[in-house]
């Protein structure tokens, strides 16, 4: 079973993504800040990460910089899901950038394409 790490500070959105991914046969972990996300990423080595940009304390791009420096984690595909337009500039290597509120089917398609 493929593992997805969800990073978002809004518990309602975490809940949404968790249910959505689990309904489609993925295993999920959720983190609501960068610190938690780093711990979980190192422990679980997920197959894919969804990342919010604006969070209290540290923001999404800092998490991206941190995992880019770790050998085991730097190749994990990242999907940015945030309220900001034009997030490609924030995280250059993201496989996709979705704006909230996102299209559910589009997200699932991107996830499945990246986890083949």
């Amino acid at each position, binding site marked *: 079973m493929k593992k997805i790490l969800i990073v978002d*500070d*809004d518990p*309602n*959105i975490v*809940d*949404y*993504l968790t*249910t*959505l991914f689990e*309904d489609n046969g993925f295993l999920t972990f959720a983190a609501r800040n960068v610190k938690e996300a780093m711990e979980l990423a190192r422990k679980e080595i997920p197959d894919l990460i969804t990342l*919010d940009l*604006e*969070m*209290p304390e540290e923001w999404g791009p800092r998490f991206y910089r941190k995992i880019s420096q770790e050998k085991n984690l730097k190749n994990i595909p990242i999907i940015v*899901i945030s*309220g*900001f337009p034009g997030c490609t500039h924030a995280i250059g290597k993201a496989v996709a950038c979705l*704006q*909230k*509120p*996102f299209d*559910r089917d589009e997200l699932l398609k991107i996830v499945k394409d990246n986890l083949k």
Partner: protein
Amino acid sequence: MANEILIIDKDIRHAKALGIYLKRKKMRVYTAKNSDDILKLFDRINIKIVLADPSCFSKDFIGILKKIKKTYSEVQIVIMATPEQFDYAMAYLKDEAVHYLLKPVKSAALDMALKQAKTWIAVNSKLLRYEKKMQVLKQAQNLFQQLFDEVPCYISVQDKNFCLTATNKMFKRDFGDEIGSHCYEVYKHRVLPCEKCPVADTFKDALSHSTEEVVTSKSGKQHNVITWTAPVKDSHGRITQVMEMSTNISQIRQLQDHLTSLGLMIGSMSHGIKGMLTALDGGIYQLETGLAKGDKKRTDHAFDQIKQIAGRIRKMVLEILYYAKSRELVYQTVEIKKMAQKAAEDAMAMAIKKGIRFKLKIAPSLGTIQVDPNWIHATLVNFLENAIDACIYDLNKKNQFVKFDIFEKSPDRICFVIQDNGMGMDQETKEKMFTLFFTSKGSQGTGLGLFIANRVICQHGGTIEVESEPGKGSCFNISLPRKKPEQFCIVDPHHEEIT
């Protein structure tokens, strides 16, 4: 021309002779047989001169003459009397007759008397014309003074030294009756003339000039004004004074500031709104799939979630509405105990759900307070919810609590203390927490809550003291006056945040 003459003489031959003489002099001659005739004649014809023997008709003839003079003031009366009646006539008519002639009348004397009467008539009519003109002039002057006074602008007239020589009503109302003072002293409390002065420019080139200024009224209030000048010239066309007209545009400027910050707000909050919409999508997804699968647990959870998100959206919309339209406070006298209990009840539900202890302590017999209950309630709930959030966000403690203490600080001030042992605030958060659009809650905050709360407390003449330490918790000490303050301390928050 004063050619209509009425001859009144009981001596018919004498009268006839006079008539012939006067007709030869191109005068229109009328005669009257009795006193009724006289009055009827005056109704019909514009008689200018009356040549009369006062011994005519009745004893009251002099009374009739007096009446005529009173009614037709422009009529000139020439009296002709026999030597016996001469003194009597003079004593009674006095200066109401323009001339007195001895009977039988001699032509030279009559000519002179008529000439004098005509001169009087000419002078009188001239005076009448002038009087009418003066009246028109006076009316015009009144009208202009009224216009000058009632124009909804500040108008001042200044000489070459920028001394005020005239000001209108609105100017006097806001800047005082300062005739003789310098414009720059009164408008700007300066000791020297302003560097760029439209009045000086108009003295130089006789053209109208305009500037935008900030002036300070006698009460210390600042106004944004647009100023126009116009030269005032004397009869030789020299500029002796300059009129300055200032229109108050403070409201427009405030509106502009407000619109700017509204734009800023929409921009900064669109992120939060998008987050909520996504969460709402999530709730709907779970509800749909829960129902499809007949999974009651999931359906219930979805309901709960949607309810919670609806609450968040409601709060945000209300905050936007408050900010979009700043309202006047509506003061009411309310019971402090009831007000505090109501705020506590609203916040407590959330605390209990999250397993946070809520301690409410209301000192006995607090009495009443004058506030706008709606805004104070919203503000207290906001502080309480923040305290609960601070506990929720704090992941390191188990025994979390929020304390809400209400007590009398002094007879005229009431304290509302909200304390939590949550995550606390660092120096930066503490400094910025009341700033518009600042939030430490990421996408969950609008950055409006504490900004509005601070403004509401300020408007009520209250104060907020904050103590906080990261990891240990925060304490907000809100102090409100028991009675409505005489003067509001309204710091204009838009101004501070935008500039």
